[in-house]
């Protein structure tokens, strides 16, 4: 029984998926009154879907919460390669480039009127879903923004300020953030932040004007001084003894958060939901301060319509209504996802929003501020793989005793292997 089954079944899946040719068949053919929608789990998409069907009782939406954003992208890839595709699918920003590379799999939203609504969105967010010949593949649903969530009770116990303005003033730069970490560690003997890889490097590397690719879409990850500087910050934090060395979203990370094993964690707007659900008993003990360094963004998702969708028009009507500036503002009020439509950034519903879980921090204002003056960079098809290898190299130093002196060279070598450069 344990002999060849895994090999054969893997081969079976490979071949079944591969046997079907992509891009066959055209759109349309549905009833226009119902459509299938694939989304991630744990982001409360159902609330928004219900809000839409309440307004349009004649429309039926079959919502499937596929899994994490990565699992959703994997299922979508399999579906595009030959299975039954949804009419509407949510794609996370990190997974988007691999689909943008293959625009023939999606409806060019310009044919449905995307050009008319383009002006509503942050242009650098919009541009990430534009393929090489100008096809528009997705409409941005939200952006991440950046901030640091911290535990006021633990900060107080360490003799650090707890007021969010004063805490933000503690760390104008990432070096100052690491110094604060050392102060905290000295006072309490405990870890200051969860890990260096995600909480420091992954934030800092998203605050650059040019990341792994240059503006003309050439790979520059190994020569770009901004990437190297972010990496060095990550290594510095990893070797400063201020982290608890738990990778984000691991079970020990969740347990550590609930037990107050670390006092600060980098938190793009979508992370707030994660903190709420991971450590519900810590309600009211958190607050949110500014991110060290410059403005930046991590995350955000897009809605796309696969080419073989049966009901593209019904899906587009949904996009147009729910992703309008007002639609996104309502979505923000419902679940806290930050709108990608700057016209509502001054709206009182956003600026006055306070989150009781985080000591009534004005989340809307903090996160939109973190986007001001952001310098957009190009995200390419290998960006996710490159980022993962850099993360791994820092995690290796942080958790497995890797040599910090060779970490950069190791990372670059691993990236070359990974992307087959």
């Amino acid at each position: 029984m344990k002999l060849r089954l895994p090999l054969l079944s893997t081969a079976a899946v490979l071949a079944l998926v591969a046997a079907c040719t992509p891009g066959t068949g055209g759109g349309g053919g549905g009833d226009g009154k119902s459509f299938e929608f694939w989304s991630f789990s744990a982001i409360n998409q159902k609330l928004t879907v219900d809000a839409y069907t309440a307004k349009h009782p004649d429309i039926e939406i079959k919502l499937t919460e596929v899994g994490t954003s990565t699992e959703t992208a994997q299922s979508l890839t399999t579906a595009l390669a030959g299975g039954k595709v949804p009419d509407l699918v949510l794609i996370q920003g990190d997974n988007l480039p691999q689909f943008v590379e293959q625009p023939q799999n999606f409806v060019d939203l310009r044919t449905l009127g995307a050009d008319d609504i383009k002006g509503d969105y942050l242009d650098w967010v919009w541009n990430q879903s534009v393929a090489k010949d100008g096809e528009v593949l997705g409409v941005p649903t939200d952006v991440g923004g950046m901030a640091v969530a911290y535990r006021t009770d633990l900060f107080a116990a360490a003799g650090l300020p707890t007021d969010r303005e004063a805490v933000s003033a503690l760390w104008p730069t990432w070096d100052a953030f690491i110094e604060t970490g050392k102060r905290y560690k000295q006072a309490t003997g405990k870890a200051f932040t969860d890990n260096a890889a995600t909480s420091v490097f992954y934030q800092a590397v998203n605050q650059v004007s040019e990341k792994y690719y240059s503006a003309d879409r050439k790979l520059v990850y190994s020569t770009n001084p901004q990437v190297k500087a972010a990496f060095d910050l990550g290594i510095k934090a990893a070797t400063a003894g201020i982290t608890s060395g738990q990778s984000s979203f691991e079970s020990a990370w969740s347990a550590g958060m609930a037990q107050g094993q670390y006092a600060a964690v980098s938190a793009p707007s979508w992370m707030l939901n994660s903190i709420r659900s991971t450590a519900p008993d810590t309600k009211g003990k958190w607050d949110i301060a500014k991110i060290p360094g410059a403005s930046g963004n991590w995350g955000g998702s897009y809605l796309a319509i696969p080419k073989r969708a049966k009901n593209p028009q019904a899906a587009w009507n949904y996009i147009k209504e729910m992703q309008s500036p007002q639609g996104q503002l309502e979505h923000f009020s419902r679940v806290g996802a930050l709108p990608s439509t700057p016209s509502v950034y001054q709206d009182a519903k956003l600026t006055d929003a306070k989150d009781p879980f985080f000591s009534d921090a004005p989340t809307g204002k903090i996160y939109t501020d973190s986007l001001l003056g952001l310098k957009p960079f190009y995200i390419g098809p290998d960006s996710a793989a490159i980022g993962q290898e850099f993360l791994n190299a820092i995690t290796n130093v942080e958790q497995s005793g890797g040599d910090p002196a060779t970490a950069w060279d190791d990372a670059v070598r691993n990236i070359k292997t990974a992307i087959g450069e």
Partner: protein
Amino acid sequence: MTAGTLTPLPSADLPPPAAPKARGLGERLSPYAYIAPFFVIFGVFGLFPFAFTFYVALFDWNPIGDQVFIGVDNFTRMFGDPRFWNATGNTLSIWALSTIPQLLLALVLAHVLNHARLRFALFFRMSVLVPYVTSVAATAIVFAQLFDRDYGLLNWLLGLVGVEPVDFVQSTWGSHVLIATMVTWRWFGYTTLLYLASLQSVPRSVFEAAAIDGAGPWQRFRHITVPSLRPVIIFTVVTSTIGGLQIFTEPLLIASGAPLTCGAVRQCQTLTLFLYEQGFGQFEFGYGSAIGVALFVMVVAIAAINYLLSTRIKADR
């Protein structure tokens, strides 16, 4: 009944020769129809995909983009890929750490369970099979928690005797030991039962005669148990080796932060996990298939060694 009143032969009642021919065709074909479902399904889900993997391995195959024929480039790339050799090394290391203790443990247990004066023998014999019927995912989750760096029971025990906490998942040897423990835990009962079944065919009188002749427990084990189990030992070595080459679920589940690589530096990424990462994480179907082909070659090589060994054992007898 006497010899003179023999009942007529059944053939005398048979209809004329033409009829049995027609029925004979249907009868001759019907067995194939009965077994056809298995072979059709095997062909569709087993044989075809299996053969197709060899085909895909020759392509740069993007499932939602182009499929470019590149010949053996995937294989050249694989032989120069440190990640492939790392995965091979991890697989062999985990295999050695799991198979050898597992077989030794099973051998001793089978010897004990076969003991004539063992009370509640059935209970003990059934108990060893419990880990085998436990879901592998459940086993992996429980073991990952037992071995956890910060909240694990094992590190708590180590802490009581003053040992610094060990980060099993993040270190190379630690993660291998962890996975090997899970594999051993899952399979030792199954192997024990195989040995036990084989041992029970050895007449008890042989053991008794040896005991009367003054052979101690160790001598009986060494000179009766082990030799009489030789064919089944070879069999279990081969099956657990082939199974060991395909360890997948355990490494996938223990490093929840980086599941597809089993940790930041691929410290416990096995070959099947590497295949999965390339095929379904990176969607490099061609490269993933090439890894699958390499794995197949290894399995075939081991099966061939098995064949040679078992024919030699037969010849010895």
